[in-house]
Protein backbone atom coordinates (compact mmCIF):
# COMPACT_ATOMS: atom_id res chain seq x y z
CA UNK A 1 0.00 0.00 0.00
CA UNK A 2 2.28 2.70 1.21
CA UNK A 3 5.57 1.00 0.57
CA UNK A 4 6.40 3.57 -2.00
CA UNK A 5 6.43 6.23 0.64
CA UNK A 6 9.01 4.32 2.58
CA UNK A 7 11.37 4.08 -0.25
CA UNK A 8 14.57 5.73 0.85
CA UNK A 9 14.87 9.09 -0.73
CA UNK A 10 18.18 10.78 -0.53
CA UNK A 11 17.91 14.32 0.69
CA UNK A 12 18.04 16.71 -2.16
CA UNK A 13 20.77 19.11 -1.31
CA UNK A 14 21.67 20.10 -4.79
CA UNK A 15 19.39 23.06 -5.02
CA UNK A 16 17.43 25.28 -2.71
CA UNK A 17 14.24 24.29 -4.53
CA UNK A 18 12.65 21.11 -3.33
CA UNK A 19 12.33 18.98 -6.40
CA UNK A 20 9.98 16.07 -6.41
CA UNK A 21 11.98 12.91 -6.93
CA UNK A 22 8.87 11.16 -8.29
CA UNK A 23 9.14 7.65 -6.96
CA UNK A 24 7.46 6.30 -10.06
CA UNK A 25 5.12 3.64 -8.68
CA UNK A 26 4.74 1.69 -11.87
CA UNK A 27 4.94 -2.00 -11.06
CA UNK A 28 7.74 -3.95 -12.68
CA UNK A 29 6.60 -5.37 -16.00
CA UNK A 30 6.81 -9.01 -15.08
CA UNK A 31 4.50 -8.57 -12.13
CA UNK A 32 1.62 -7.89 -14.46
CA UNK A 33 2.57 -10.40 -17.07
CA UNK A 34 1.97 -13.36 -14.85
CA UNK A 35 -0.07 -13.84 -11.73
CA UNK A 36 2.01 -16.79 -10.70
CA UNK A 37 4.16 -16.06 -7.75
CA UNK A 38 6.64 -18.61 -8.90
CA UNK A 39 7.31 -16.46 -11.80
CA UNK A 40 8.41 -13.62 -9.61
CA UNK A 41 10.74 -15.76 -7.60
CA UNK A 42 11.99 -17.16 -10.84
CA UNK A 43 12.99 -13.74 -12.00
CA UNK A 44 14.45 -12.94 -8.65
CA UNK A 45 16.52 -16.05 -8.70
CA UNK A 46 20.12 -15.34 -7.92
CA UNK A 47 21.04 -17.48 -10.89
CA UNK A 48 19.89 -14.83 -13.23
CA UNK A 49 21.95 -12.11 -11.77
CA UNK A 50 24.90 -14.38 -11.55
CA UNK A 51 24.47 -15.43 -15.09
CA UNK A 52 25.42 -12.34 -16.91
CA UNK A 53 27.67 -13.01 -19.76
CA UNK A 54 30.79 -10.95 -19.71
CA UNK A 55 31.24 -8.86 -22.77
CA UNK A 56 27.65 -8.53 -23.89
CA UNK A 57 27.56 -4.86 -23.28
CA UNK A 58 24.22 -3.23 -23.73
CA UNK A 59 21.27 -4.42 -21.74
CA UNK A 60 22.49 -7.95 -21.21
CA UNK A 61 20.41 -8.67 -18.18
CA UNK A 62 17.23 -8.76 -20.24
CA UNK A 63 18.47 -11.23 -22.74
CA UNK A 64 18.32 -14.43 -20.74
CA UNK A 65 14.80 -13.69 -19.63
CA UNK A 66 13.55 -13.70 -23.15
CA UNK A 67 14.23 -17.26 -24.05
CA UNK A 68 13.85 -18.77 -20.68
CA UNK A 69 10.85 -21.04 -20.83
CA UNK A 70 7.83 -19.62 -19.09
CA UNK A 71 7.13 -21.24 -15.78
CA UNK A 72 4.39 -23.63 -16.85
CA UNK A 73 6.01 -25.58 -19.64
CA UNK A 74 9.14 -25.87 -17.58
CA UNK A 75 7.22 -27.63 -14.91
CA UNK A 76 5.40 -29.84 -17.30
CA UNK A 77 8.64 -30.79 -18.85
CA UNK A 78 10.03 -31.66 -15.45
CA UNK A 79 7.05 -33.80 -14.70
CA UNK A 80 7.37 -35.62 -17.96
CA UNK A 81 11.04 -36.05 -17.51
CA UNK A 82 10.73 -37.33 -14.02
CA UNK A 83 8.06 -39.79 -15.00
CA UNK A 84 10.38 -40.99 -17.68
CA UNK A 85 13.05 -41.32 -15.05
CA UNK A 86 10.74 -43.28 -12.91
CA UNK A 87 10.18 -45.71 -15.68
CA UNK A 88 13.84 -46.28 -16.25
CA UNK A 89 15.09 -46.40 -12.79
CA UNK A 90 18.50 -47.51 -13.92
CA UNK A 91 19.07 -44.28 -15.78
CA UNK A 92 22.14 -42.95 -14.04
CA UNK A 93 22.37 -39.24 -13.58
CA UNK A 94 19.34 -37.04 -13.37
CA UNK A 95 18.38 -35.64 -16.74
CA UNK A 96 20.29 -32.71 -18.09
CA UNK A 97 19.48 -33.80 -21.56
CA UNK A 98 20.94 -31.61 -24.27
CA UNK A 99 20.12 -28.29 -22.79
CA UNK A 100 18.11 -25.96 -24.87
CA UNK A 101 18.42 -23.39 -22.17
CA UNK A 102 21.58 -22.88 -20.32
CA UNK A 103 19.50 -21.56 -17.48
CA UNK A 104 18.15 -24.97 -16.60
CA UNK A 105 19.67 -24.88 -13.10
CA UNK A 106 17.33 -22.10 -11.98
CA UNK A 107 14.41 -24.26 -13.03
CA UNK A 108 15.68 -26.94 -10.75
CA UNK A 109 16.21 -24.45 -8.00
CA UNK A 110 12.66 -23.20 -8.21
CA UNK A 111 11.14 -26.64 -7.98
CA UNK A 112 13.01 -28.66 -5.44
CA UNK A 113 11.24 -31.81 -4.37
CA UNK A 114 9.43 -30.78 -1.25
CA UNK A 115 10.14 -33.73 0.91
CA UNK A 116 12.63 -36.50 0.57
CA UNK A 117 11.51 -39.53 2.43
CA UNK A 118 14.43 -41.66 1.40
CA UNK A 119 17.79 -40.50 0.23
CA UNK A 120 17.72 -40.92 -3.50
CA UNK A 121 20.41 -40.01 -5.97
CA UNK A 122 18.08 -38.59 -8.58
CA UNK A 123 16.37 -35.49 -7.21
CA UNK A 124 13.40 -35.42 -9.59
CA UNK A 125 12.54 -39.00 -8.68
CA UNK A 126 11.72 -38.02 -5.11
CA UNK A 127 9.78 -40.91 -3.68
CA UNK A 128 6.20 -39.96 -3.16
CA UNK A 129 5.76 -36.57 -4.62
CA UNK A 130 2.78 -36.49 -6.87
CA UNK A 131 3.03 -33.98 -9.63
CA UNK A 132 -0.27 -34.72 -11.24
CA UNK A 133 -3.03 -32.62 -9.81
CA UNK A 134 -6.71 -33.27 -9.67
CA UNK A 135 -9.00 -30.93 -11.51
CA UNK A 136 -10.17 -28.56 -8.83
CA UNK A 137 -13.50 -27.93 -10.53
CA UNK A 138 -14.28 -31.62 -10.41
CA UNK A 139 -13.40 -31.80 -6.73
CA UNK A 140 -15.71 -28.93 -6.06
CA UNK A 141 -18.50 -30.60 -7.98
CA UNK A 142 -18.06 -33.80 -6.00
CA UNK A 143 -18.11 -31.82 -2.80
CA UNK A 144 -21.28 -30.07 -3.76
CA UNK A 145 -22.97 -33.22 -4.96
CA UNK A 146 -23.99 -33.50 -1.35
CA UNK A 147 -26.95 -31.20 -1.28
CA UNK A 148 -26.28 -30.17 2.29
CA UNK A 149 -23.03 -28.68 1.24
CA UNK A 150 -23.59 -25.09 0.37
CA UNK A 151 -21.09 -22.51 -0.67
CA UNK A 152 -17.46 -23.34 -0.71
CA UNK A 153 -14.60 -20.90 -0.48
CA UNK A 154 -12.19 -20.66 -3.35
CA UNK A 155 -9.35 -22.29 -1.47
CA UNK A 156 -11.42 -25.12 -0.13
CA UNK A 157 -11.43 -27.44 -3.15
CA UNK A 158 -7.72 -26.82 -3.48
CA UNK A 159 -7.15 -27.83 0.10
CA UNK A 160 -9.41 -30.84 -0.31
CA UNK A 161 -7.64 -31.95 -3.42
CA UNK A 162 -4.33 -31.82 -1.56
CA UNK A 163 -5.88 -33.89 1.19
CA UNK A 164 -7.14 -36.30 -1.42
CA UNK A 165 -3.69 -36.59 -2.87
CA UNK A 166 -2.24 -37.51 0.52
CA UNK A 167 -5.11 -39.88 1.08
CA UNK A 168 -4.44 -41.61 -2.20
CA UNK A 169 -0.75 -41.91 -1.49
CA UNK A 170 -1.52 -43.53 1.81
CA UNK A 171 -4.06 -45.96 0.33
CA UNK A 172 -1.89 -46.97 -2.59
CA UNK A 173 1.15 -47.40 -0.38
CA UNK A 174 -0.76 -49.50 2.11
CA UNK A 175 -2.30 -51.65 -0.59
CA UNK A 176 1.12 -52.11 -2.17
CA UNK A 177 2.54 -53.17 1.16
CA UNK A 178 -0.30 -55.61 1.57
CA UNK A 179 0.48 -57.06 -1.84
CA UNK A 180 4.14 -57.28 -0.98
CA UNK A 181 3.36 -59.14 2.23
CA UNK A 182 1.50 -61.67 0.15
CA UNK A 183 4.27 -61.96 -2.39
CA UNK A 184 2.17 -60.49 -5.11
CA UNK A 185 3.51 -58.10 -7.67
CA UNK A 186 0.05 -57.13 -8.63
CA UNK A 187 -1.91 -54.95 -6.27
CA UNK A 188 -5.49 -56.08 -6.45
CA UNK A 189 -8.74 -54.74 -5.10
CA UNK A 190 -8.58 -57.39 -2.45
CA UNK A 191 -5.22 -56.11 -1.24
CA UNK A 192 -6.67 -52.67 -1.05
CA UNK A 193 -9.59 -54.05 0.85
CA UNK A 194 -7.38 -55.69 3.43
CA UNK A 195 -5.31 -52.56 3.83
CA UNK A 196 -8.43 -50.52 4.39
CA UNK A 197 -9.88 -53.02 6.83
CA UNK A 198 -6.77 -52.82 8.98
CA UNK A 199 -7.05 -49.13 9.55
CA UNK A 200 -9.62 -47.76 11.93
CA UNK A 201 -9.48 -44.32 10.42
CA UNK A 202 -10.69 -45.82 7.17
CA UNK A 203 -13.86 -47.23 8.67
CA UNK A 204 -15.90 -44.90 6.53
CA UNK A 205 -14.92 -47.02 3.53
CA UNK A 206 -16.43 -50.14 5.03
CA UNK A 207 -19.48 -50.10 2.78
CA UNK A 208 -17.40 -49.72 -0.31
CA UNK A 209 -14.92 -52.46 0.43
CA UNK A 210 -17.68 -54.79 1.53
CA UNK A 211 -18.51 -55.26 -2.13
CA UNK A 212 -15.11 -56.68 -2.88
CA UNK A 213 -14.73 -60.44 -2.66
CA UNK A 214 -11.84 -61.64 -0.54
CA UNK A 215 -10.41 -63.84 -3.21
CA UNK A 216 -10.30 -61.99 -6.46
CA UNK A 217 -12.28 -63.81 -9.08
CA UNK A 218 -10.07 -65.37 -11.72
CA UNK A 219 -11.90 -63.43 -14.36
CA UNK A 220 -9.72 -60.37 -14.20
CA UNK A 221 -6.74 -61.93 -12.62
CA UNK A 222 -4.74 -63.15 -15.55
CA UNK A 223 -5.56 -60.82 -18.37
CA UNK A 224 -4.79 -57.70 -16.40
CA UNK A 225 -1.13 -58.35 -15.84
CA UNK A 226 0.20 -56.94 -19.04
CA UNK A 227 -2.62 -54.77 -20.16
CA UNK A 228 -2.69 -52.75 -17.01
CA UNK A 229 0.71 -51.39 -17.67
CA UNK A 230 -0.09 -50.58 -21.21
CA UNK A 231 -3.19 -48.86 -20.17
CA UNK A 232 -1.28 -46.65 -17.82
CA UNK A 233 0.92 -45.58 -20.62
CA UNK A 234 -1.75 -45.21 -23.20
CA UNK A 235 -3.93 -43.11 -20.99
CA UNK A 236 -1.12 -40.78 -20.33
CA UNK A 237 -1.94 -39.07 -23.59
CA UNK A 238 -4.50 -36.59 -22.43
CA UNK A 239 -2.40 -34.27 -20.34
CA UNK A 240 -3.87 -32.92 -17.24
CA UNK A 241 -6.20 -30.11 -18.13
CA UNK A 242 -4.44 -26.95 -17.27
CA UNK A 243 -5.79 -26.08 -13.91
CA UNK A 244 -6.43 -22.49 -13.12
CA UNK A 245 -6.60 -21.80 -9.46
CA UNK A 246 -9.63 -19.62 -9.70
Amino acid at each position, binding site marked *: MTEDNYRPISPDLSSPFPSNPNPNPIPPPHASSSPLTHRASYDDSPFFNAYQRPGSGSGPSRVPQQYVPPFQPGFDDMARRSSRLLQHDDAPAPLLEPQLYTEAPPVMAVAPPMEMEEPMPAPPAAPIEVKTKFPVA*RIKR*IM*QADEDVGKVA*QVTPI*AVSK*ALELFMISLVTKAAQEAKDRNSKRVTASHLKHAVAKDEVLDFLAD*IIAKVPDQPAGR*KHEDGEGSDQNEGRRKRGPRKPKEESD
Partner: protein
Amino acid sequence: MSDREFNSNDDLSLPKATVQKIITEILPPSSGQTFSKDARDLLMECCVEFITLISSEANEISEKEAKKTIACEHVEKALKELGFADYVPDILAVAEDHKEQLKSREKKQSKMEQSGLSEEELLRQQQELFRSATEKYNQGPE
Protein backbone atom coordinates in the same frame (compact mmCIF):
# COMPACT_ATOMS: atom_id res chain seq x y z
CA MET B 1 -18.31 -53.31 -17.06
CA SER B 2 -15.93 -51.11 -15.21
CA ASP B 3 -14.57 -49.89 -18.47
CA ARG B 4 -17.74 -48.19 -19.57
CA GLU B 5 -16.87 -44.64 -19.02
CA PHE B 6 -20.15 -43.10 -19.96
CA ASN B 7 -22.44 -43.79 -17.10
CA SER B 8 -24.63 -41.05 -15.81
CA ASN B 9 -22.69 -40.13 -12.68
CA ASP B 10 -19.34 -40.25 -14.36
CA ASP B 11 -18.65 -36.63 -13.66
CA LEU B 12 -19.06 -37.29 -9.99
CA SER B 13 -16.07 -39.55 -10.00
CA LEU B 14 -12.48 -38.67 -10.58
CA PRO B 15 -10.93 -38.73 -14.02
CA LYS B 16 -9.51 -42.19 -14.57
CA ALA B 17 -6.49 -41.06 -16.48
CA THR B 18 -5.48 -38.67 -13.72
CA VAL B 19 -5.92 -41.31 -11.06
CA GLN B 20 -3.92 -43.79 -13.07
CA LYS B 21 -1.19 -41.27 -13.56
CA ILE B 22 -0.95 -40.58 -9.87
CA ILE B 23 -0.91 -44.28 -9.09
CA THR B 24 1.98 -44.69 -11.49
CA GLU B 25 3.77 -41.84 -9.78
CA ILE B 26 3.33 -43.53 -6.43
CA LEU B 27 4.11 -47.01 -7.72
CA PRO B 28 6.51 -46.53 -10.60
CA PRO B 29 7.17 -49.57 -12.79
CA SER B 30 10.60 -49.72 -11.18
CA SER B 31 8.92 -50.68 -7.94
CA GLY B 32 8.05 -53.95 -9.61
CA GLN B 33 4.45 -53.62 -8.57
CA THR B 34 1.46 -52.98 -10.73
CA PHE B 35 -1.88 -51.69 -9.69
CA SER B 36 -4.73 -53.69 -11.12
CA LYS B 37 -7.71 -52.12 -12.78
CA ASP B 38 -10.18 -53.31 -10.22
CA ALA B 39 -7.96 -51.94 -7.48
CA ARG B 40 -7.88 -48.63 -9.26
CA ASP B 41 -11.63 -48.53 -9.61
CA LEU B 42 -12.01 -49.33 -5.96
CA LEU B 43 -9.48 -46.68 -5.10
CA MET B 44 -11.47 -44.13 -7.08
CA GLU B 45 -14.60 -45.00 -5.17
CA CYS B 46 -12.72 -44.63 -1.94
CA CYS B 47 -11.43 -41.25 -3.04
CA VAL B 48 -14.88 -39.95 -3.85
CA GLU B 49 -16.09 -41.23 -0.52
CA PHE B 50 -13.22 -39.43 1.13
CA ILE B 51 -14.15 -36.14 -0.50
CA THR B 52 -17.75 -36.61 0.51
CA LEU B 53 -16.76 -37.41 4.05
CA ILE B 54 -14.47 -34.45 4.42
CA SER B 55 -16.87 -32.00 2.88
CA SER B 56 -19.84 -33.13 4.90
CA GLU B 57 -17.81 -32.95 8.08
CA ALA B 58 -16.46 -29.55 7.11
CA ASN B 59 -19.98 -28.47 6.28
CA GLU B 60 -21.20 -29.46 9.71
CA ILE B 61 -18.39 -27.59 11.35
CA SER B 62 -19.07 -24.48 9.32
CA GLU B 63 -22.76 -24.67 10.18
CA LYS B 64 -21.93 -24.90 13.84
CA GLU B 65 -19.96 -21.73 13.48
CA ALA B 66 -22.89 -20.17 11.67
CA LYS B 67 -20.85 -19.71 8.53
CA LYS B 68 -22.41 -20.04 5.14
CA THR B 69 -19.25 -20.83 3.28
CA ILE B 70 -16.96 -23.74 3.91
CA ALA B 71 -13.53 -22.29 4.43
CA CYS B 72 -10.14 -23.90 4.64
CA GLU B 73 -10.18 -23.86 8.43
CA HIS B 74 -13.28 -26.00 8.38
CA VAL B 75 -11.57 -28.53 6.21
CA GLU B 76 -8.64 -28.40 8.57
CA LYS B 77 -10.86 -29.08 11.57
CA ALA B 78 -12.70 -31.81 9.71
CA LEU B 79 -9.43 -33.56 8.92
CA LYS B 80 -8.39 -33.41 12.55
CA GLU B 81 -11.77 -34.64 13.63
CA LEU B 82 -11.66 -37.60 11.28
CA GLY B 83 -8.18 -38.78 12.13
CA PHE B 84 -6.28 -37.21 9.26
CA ALA B 85 -4.50 -34.64 11.37
CA ASP B 86 -1.20 -35.44 9.72
CA TYR B 87 -2.51 -34.02 6.45
CA VAL B 88 -3.08 -30.63 7.97
CA PRO B 89 0.36 -29.04 7.58
CA ASP B 90 0.46 -29.79 3.87
CA ILE B 91 -3.05 -28.51 3.37
CA LEU B 92 -2.24 -25.28 5.13
CA ALA B 93 0.83 -24.87 3.00
CA VAL B 94 -1.19 -25.31 -0.16
CA ALA B 95 -3.83 -22.88 1.05
CA GLU B 96 -1.13 -20.39 1.91
CA ASP B 97 0.32 -20.67 -1.56
CA HIS B 98 -3.06 -19.99 -2.99
CA LYS B 99 -3.56 -16.94 -0.80
CA GLU B 100 -0.21 -15.60 -1.87
CA GLN B 101 -1.28 -15.84 -5.46
CA LEU B 102 -4.52 -14.08 -4.74
CA LYS B 103 -2.73 -11.40 -2.79
CA SER B 104 -0.42 -10.56 -5.60
CA ARG B 105 -3.45 -10.18 -7.80
CA GLU B 106 -5.30 -7.99 -5.35
CA LYS B 107 -2.28 -5.84 -4.86
CA LYS B 108 -2.30 -5.07 -8.49
CA GLN B 109 -5.93 -4.09 -8.39
CA SER B 110 -5.56 -1.82 -5.42
CA LYS B 111 -2.64 -0.14 -7.07
CA MET B 112 -4.96 0.67 -9.91
CA GLU B 113 -7.50 2.12 -7.54
CA GLN B 114 -4.89 4.19 -5.83
CA SER B 115 -3.53 5.57 -9.01
CA GLY B 116 -5.71 8.60 -8.38
CA LEU B 117 -6.94 8.64 -11.94
CA SER B 118 -10.58 8.80 -12.83
CA GLU B 119 -12.30 5.81 -14.31
CA GLU B 120 -12.51 7.46 -17.71
CA GLU B 121 -8.85 8.16 -17.64
CA LEU B 122 -8.05 4.59 -16.69
CA LEU B 123 -10.34 3.30 -19.40
CA ARG B 124 -8.66 5.48 -21.94
CA GLN B 125 -5.25 4.23 -20.88
CA GLN B 126 -6.52 0.68 -21.09
CA GLN B 127 -7.80 1.18 -24.59
CA GLU B 128 -4.49 2.62 -25.53
CA LEU B 129 -2.71 -0.40 -24.14
CA PHE B 130 -5.07 -2.67 -26.03
CA ARG B 131 -4.30 -0.83 -29.21
CA SER B 132 -0.57 -0.99 -28.77
CA ALA B 133 -0.84 -4.65 -27.87
CA THR B 134 -2.84 -5.35 -30.99
CA GLU B 135 -0.29 -3.54 -33.06
CA LYS B 136 2.49 -5.52 -31.51
CA TYR B 137 0.57 -8.69 -32.07
CA ASN B 138 -0.08 -7.88 -35.68
CA GLN B 139 3.55 -7.21 -36.28
CA GLY B 140 4.14 -10.63 -34.90
CA PRO B 141 7.35 -11.98 -33.47
CA GLU B 142 9.42 -13.42 -36.24
